[in-house]
């Protein structure tokens, strides 16, 4: 696991950088309170209603589809890495696997889950 150590250090440095900049900015920047500055921007008129409204279910459908397909993609990764060793059997197996994936994809498409407008 020692080879992962640099990534951890990198994470530390990468997190330190924005933190440090924000602290410096906080020290040197002006802060002049103004009531109109703190209003929500809605093109120059007082906002009507709250922004945390319910949002269309379509976005959740995408999220669910994503989870399904992403998991299947992840299943492909180990197979792809060992593909040369698996040979013809691996190829046939993958075609079957992708076939199932495509059926699911075609079903979602057919059901209109991919229609956005």
């Amino acid at each position, binding site marked *: 696991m020692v080879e992962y150590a640099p990534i951890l250090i990198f994470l530390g440095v990468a997190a330190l950088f924005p933190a440090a900049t924000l602290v410096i900015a906080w020290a040197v920047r002006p802060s002049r309170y103004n009531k109109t500055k703190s209003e929500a921007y809605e*093109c120059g*008129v007082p906002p009507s*209603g709250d922004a945390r409204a319910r*949002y*269309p*279910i*379509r976005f959740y459908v995408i999220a669910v589809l994503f989870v399904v397909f992403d998991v299947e993609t992840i299943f492909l990764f180990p197979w792809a890495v060992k593909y040369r060793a698996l040979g013809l059997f691996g190829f046939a197996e993958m075609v079957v696997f992708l076939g199932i994936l495509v059926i699911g994809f075609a079903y979602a498409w057919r059901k*209109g889950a991919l*229609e956005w*407008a």
Partner: protein
Amino acid sequence: MFRTEEMDINMGPQHPSTHGVLRLKLTLDGEEIVDVRPIIGYLHRGVEKLCEHRTYPMIEPLTDRLDYVAAISENLGYCGAVEKLMGLQVPPRAQYIRVILAELQRIASHLLWLGTHALDLGAMTVYFYTFRERELILDLFEQFCGARLTYNSMRIGGLLEDVPAGWTDRVRHFLGLFPSRQKEYEDLLTVNRIWLGRTRGVGILKADDAVAMGASGPTLRGSGVDYDVRRAQPYSSYEQFEFDVPTGTNCDTYDRYLVRMEEMRQSCRIIRQALDRLPEGEVRAKVPKYIKPPVGEVYHVVESPRGEQGFYLVSKGGEMPYRMRFRSPSFVNLQALPMMCRGQLIADVVAVIGSIDIVLGDVDR
């Protein structure tokens, strides 16, 4: 497929793509537009009322500020209305120069439209190209009258002065340059698949609806109605020029785009004819020192780059009009916006606003 809560959102008056201070109250179902309500008046200056307290020559600068990107069309319409009421005959040379100016203005205005329309849809580079050429036209105007935006370029009865020496050659030079430049914009847009996707089938306005809404100009012609004031009721000797009136067939944003692109070419054609046949002579008719039109009323229309620009003038015989009324094409075309937007996506509103080419100074007056 699914329905959720609708959300109200304000687009404008301070928004990058409502072309000024137009405010739209959008009712959204997700990304889809359920309803659009335009709210106007943020640029209202009461120009019609101001006109009642100005003498006739003093009103012309006010007309500059109606449709400030096509001020010459406004000047032309206003002067035409007063001349019609007074029964003045404008000398032919002045009429031709007016035509040249008005058509240059049409190109300049369409260039501004094209740049901002493309910018709204994310093609920023076209904006800089069109403004490069618009700059050339503004230079021509500057050489003619000293101003670059609000020209006050004409006088009742003709022009203040003849064009400066060498000006017509510079116009010819511009005409020689422009077609290749226009091709540059077309290369970037006309056959661009994303551009087609963003404009084709978007903001459809059927011919019947367009007529019912009173739309005019390219917005009307994009819907396939062959109506152009320059041909239907010629003024300033437009009847002596040959030009085509382009119309659309699909009534969508793309057709309105094509119509305006073709109009620019036709404008070049008109200017070329006017330059070739430019008559010699005076540029201003004999007008009394104090302009006092007789008692009466007149309605005069011109084809501004945005459409049918009308001037309704009532005179009681004094030095100032009794009532002045402007029929502004932007205002009327804006009425059609909700009809074109319903059922489309948010991004399409931007495309449709761009395609009807409104100027808020003209809408609010």
